[in-house]
């Protein structure tokens, strides 16, 4: 009946009352297991690059400055907070924090950079040991990696030697506008 429906509709609001939250004037806590911005613990990170390999948005970049120093850069501007990096990290160095208020005008606020000193193998001169975990087995990271940290872009293939031409192409990449380019 029409009138009883109307009365029920008005009464529907009586039990919950006003549900407007006071956010942002009061903080609003999130449940546990929330996937907020990832955070790297530089004490635990071994520089294996598993996170860089698995990141769906290609926003974790790796650059070897020299044989002993590896720079890992996380650029939060394209991060989708999927949590694959945290899942795959063999050292549990990445945690998905509960920070979600990440809007900012400076890129540095959402960037995390780690500069890691890599111990070198005395026999071959390379860095990590691949026997311990499966994730590292599946990496195709070999040799040096030289993602372009300046333009924050990822280099799809790695070669055993640094190739200046490929590197320059990344910096100056322009989208093709006709076929045959």
């Amino acid at each position: 009946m029409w009138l009883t429906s109307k009365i029920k509709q008005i009464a529907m609001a009586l039990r919950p009352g006003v549900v407007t939250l006071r956010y942002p004037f009061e903080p609003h806590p999130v449940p546990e297991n929330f996937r907020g911005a990832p955070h790297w613990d530089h004490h635990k990170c071994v520089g294996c690059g598993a996170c860089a390999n698995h990141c769906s948005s290609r926003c974790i970049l790796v650059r070897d400055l020299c044989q002993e120093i590896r720079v890992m850069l996380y650029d939060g501007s394209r991060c989708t907070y999927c949590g694959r990096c945290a899942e795959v990290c063999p050292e549990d160095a990445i945690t998905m924090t509960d920070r979600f208020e990440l809007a900012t005008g400076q890129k540095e606020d959402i960037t995390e950079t780690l500069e890691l000193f890599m111990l070198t193998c005395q026999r071959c001169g390379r860095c990590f040991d691949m026997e311990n975990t499966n994730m590292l087995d599946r990496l195709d990271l070999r040799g040096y990696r030289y993602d372009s940290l300046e333009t924050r872009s990822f280099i799809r293939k790695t070669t055993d030697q640094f190739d200046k031409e490929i590197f320059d192409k990344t910096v100056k990449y322009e989208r093709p506008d006709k076929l045959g380019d």
Partner: protein
Amino acid sequence: MEIVYVFINIVVFLALAPLFDGIIRKLTARVQSRQGPPVIQPYFDLLKLLGKENINSADNRAFKLAPVMALASIISVISFVPLGYKATCLTGYADIITVIYLLTLGGVSILLGALSSKNTYAMIGASREMVTMVMVEPVLAMTFILGAVKVRSLGIDATMFSIAGNGYGWSVGLMLIVYLLALQAFVAKQPFDIAEAEIEILEGPFIEYSGPGYGLFKYYMMLKQMFYASLFVIVFMPFLSSGFYLVDLVIQLAEIAVVFAFIALVGSTNPRLRIDQAVKYYSVLIVLAICAVGLSAYGI
């Protein structure tokens, strides 16, 4: 002395119409279990709109004139209204035909604005507004005619006070119900905001307006709401008059607030009807109104 009443009318209406609109918004929000804007929000809205750049998107004088005409018409009606049961000095210079004419002029200025904006959506909204006006104004006219039949005069205060002044009869009771049923259509709120605020379906006759023009139209709508509510209070609820002007004024404003609460509750619990369904509804109301007038002609 009576010239003061004109100014008091205008000041009271201009100052309080946004407040009552704020009450509607607040009450609607509470029914929807949310906090809602502060009750004085419409003042902020009007101030903001009046401060913006006036873009004449249709590039003709009628477009610029329409909101001013609407506001002028409603303010003139307000100066005739015998608020507080005291006729103003202008009340004697007009009669109910003038009031009906000026209210229709307000509607016509919306049409003028809509049709001069050369926009498809505005034209659809204007056609709906025209249909609504044609069907709903007769109910208002019948309300006045009811009183006119009783006192055999067309004067504003005479007709208004006489309708319920000698107690309720069948005719007055019927007219009261009809007026309440038509109130939502008068003030253009759900379920009858078909022409004006059809945000989902069309943007309506105000689509090309922005800034001060839009602010004036909004003010016009708020004043119109308050006028219809005050008309209801003056005509159908005369029993709380005490004789002192200021006390009566305050009592009437409180009653107007109650009417606004009613508008808010009905408005927030109804979907919007289609124009053809609304026309069927209005025709029933017109028939009932004519019956009420007929009954009053027989003195019932």
